[in-house]
């Protein structure tokens, strides 16, 4: 069985160069060394996220000089519309949770820092996963990392289901691992790579939040008083 890193050719032995003039040919022979699927997918996803087609068209249009004139008139009007929309959102009954806009990863982190409302899920037979999952993603036990599940909760935030499992360590520190049923917008933060996983650190200091995407969902790991490095390590294996 070839792993994710293996080459597409497995029956040809490329000799190592024995003379400097053979080095280019030896390296050309490795042209069918391809990127792992997870890297290919991560980059493709990042490209898709970075510049939606409509935004690309708009930015090209704005490069033209004529657009500046229209822009000069449009900006004040747009500002009024945005302010009016914002005001309507603020006074809407139910506020944030009743709106139709998608929650953000920061909203998910807020939930992950709340109290559990259900008992901890049991571990499955293998002992590495819990009998709890969000879509295709099962929650891990993380017992060998020094954490054990202590509770769970399920929330609906702006129409999106958010499943959270809470873990505690021997020192009594608690973290929440929340998985949303959709890809939530993430603003700001610092992009961090850990073992091939693309993670984003949203906060530092007393509250640490790490978020990533997997299987079309947004995962958030959050904890107070827990070093962000611990969360990054756990997240890199869950991502």
């Amino acid at each position, binding site marked *: 069985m070839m792993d994710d890193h293996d080459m597409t050719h497995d029956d040809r*032995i490329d000799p190592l160069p*024995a003379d400097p003039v053979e080095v280019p040919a030896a390296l050309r022979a490795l042209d069918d060394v391809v990127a792992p699927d*997870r890297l*290919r997918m991560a980059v493709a996803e990042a490209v898709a996220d970075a510049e939606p087609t409509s935004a690309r068209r708009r930015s090209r249009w704005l490069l033209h000089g004529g657009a500046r004139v229209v822009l000069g008139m449009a900006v004040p009007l747009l500002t009024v519309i945005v302010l009016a929309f914002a005001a309507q959102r603020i006074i809407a009954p139910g506020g944030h949770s009743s709106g139709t806009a998608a929650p953000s990863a920061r909203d998910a982190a807020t939930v992950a820092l709340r109290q559990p409302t259900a008992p901890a899920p049991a571990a499955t037979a293998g002992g590495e996963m819990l009998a709890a999952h969000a879509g295709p993603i099962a929650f891990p036990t993380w017992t060998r990392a020094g954490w054990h599940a202590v509770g769970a909760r399920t929330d609906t935030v702006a129409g999106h289901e958010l499943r959270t499992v809470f873990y505690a360590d021997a020192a009594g520190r608690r973290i929440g691992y929340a998985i949303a049923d959709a890809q939530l917008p993430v603003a700001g933060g610092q992009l961090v790579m850990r*073992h091939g996983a693309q993670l984003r650190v949203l906060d530092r200091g007393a509250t640490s939040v790490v978020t990533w995407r997997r299987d079309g969902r947004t995962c958030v790991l959050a904890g107070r008083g827990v070093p962000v490095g611990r969360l990054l390590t756990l997240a890199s294996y869950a991502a």
Partner: protein
Amino acid sequence: MARLDPQALVTHIDRLYRVAWALCGSREEAEDLVQETAARVLAKPRQLRGQDELAYLVQALRNTFLLSRRTASRRPREVATLDQVEPVDARGSGAGGFGMPESALAARDLFAAIAELPEDFRLALVAVDVAGLSYREAADLLDTREATIASRLFRARERVVQALAPEQEPDRGEASGASRSLR
């Protein structure tokens, strides 16, 4: 001035991965480097300034690599030790026990040898022999002359061959010592 099409990252992903592997000497670090480069490139629109897309992306990869090396040398690692965690899925290839075909072993050995080269030699070799840039493009990328690229390339190839040479026979130990003294 032409703008970089973000899709170029997808188009050239395999070549970027090989370049990153040769720079880092490790597949895992190569993945991280490509992803970090992609994130930096995608952060804002990019102008090509006369370069072709591949040359631009190789330059971005090289800059990210150098930056990450400098940053890493100044910053203590903040992650917990890996043996504290249990992998929760089968995402990795294990701790070196993967069953790689011979060609993968050749790639690993070649890229590891390249990664051990002095920086100037490594960058020249990676730009020309791995990325496939012309001497002119490599000279632009590394801000030097084509003649310098040619010289570095020759010496880099020589060192790669030396590094990959099998163990010397005992009666050829003198020659081995002589070759090492070149480094």
